[in-house]
């Protein structure tokens, strides 16, 4: 059975991960857009993003566009894997662990 991820299993962080996980490969999302989608405040979102970045689950790219600073955010490979593992864990709570085939059991 997959394991729970305490860091991800917090409502806002779960939403952040779900939002970023819906992006195409290599695609980033601007901080302001993420904030609007999640209807979060700057401070609240920033705190959770820092926590997730510290865990290596997402990458925050700071750059200038038209002389204005902006932050672009995307999941890292580790973040994507951690999110998918946690979702699998949640599903297994509801549906039970996946059945092991007889061939796999013999090995």
């Amino acid at each position, binding site marked *: 059975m997959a394991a*729970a991820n305490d860091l991800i*299993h917090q*409502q806002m962080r*779960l*939403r952040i991960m*779900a939002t970023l996980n819906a*992006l195409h490969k290599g695609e980033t999302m601007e901080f302001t857009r993420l904030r609007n*989608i999640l209807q979060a405040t700057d401070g609240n979102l920033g705190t959770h993003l820092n926590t997730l970045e510290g865990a290596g689950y997402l990458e925050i790219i700071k750059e200038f566009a038209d002389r204005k600073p902006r932050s672009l955010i995307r999941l890292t490979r580790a973040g994507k894997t951690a999110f998918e593992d946690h*979702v699998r864990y*949640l599903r297994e709570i509801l549906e039970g662990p996946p059945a092991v085939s007889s061939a796999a059991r013999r090995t």
Partner: protein
Amino acid sequence: MSITPEEAAAALQDINTTHTRSATLSVYARFAPYLILWGVVWFLGYGASALLSEGQAGLAWPPLVLLGSFGNWLITRRQTPDHGGWRYGAIFLFIGLFVVSVFTIFAPVSPRQSAAFFPLLVALAYLLIGLWGGLRILITGAVLGALTVLGFLALGPWFYAWMAVVGSGSLIMSGLWLRTV
């Protein structure tokens, strides 16, 4: 950490809702620049059709369409550098072949009829994409199609001006609408 089945179900529901919303808004954000680009192209093209003679307007459209297609390609390349490729060219080839075939079968086609046909084709594409892409794209297709038919049937000589202002305006407004969260 212990999570009850109720908490797991609620979390999964939350994830699903957030994912769907994020994916739809991502499609909208990708779609918006195309609408704004073609809104500007249509404004110039239909504006030329409204103000110039048929011959002069006929000369204005090809470079505008080429410019629009180039802009289209640039947007696609910027958004999906690892996608498209030859398929992107194939889309234009297929659409071109379809249009030439239709116009050959229904010839003679008046400039006014052909000016109504292209927006209808675009409206149909948006309706079909909107079935999967999201409600806002579907609405854009429906509005564009309805405005085109209305202008063609009811406005006679003002059709080109109608398309320049209302047709292109609806595309640009839709593009701006798609960019909002």
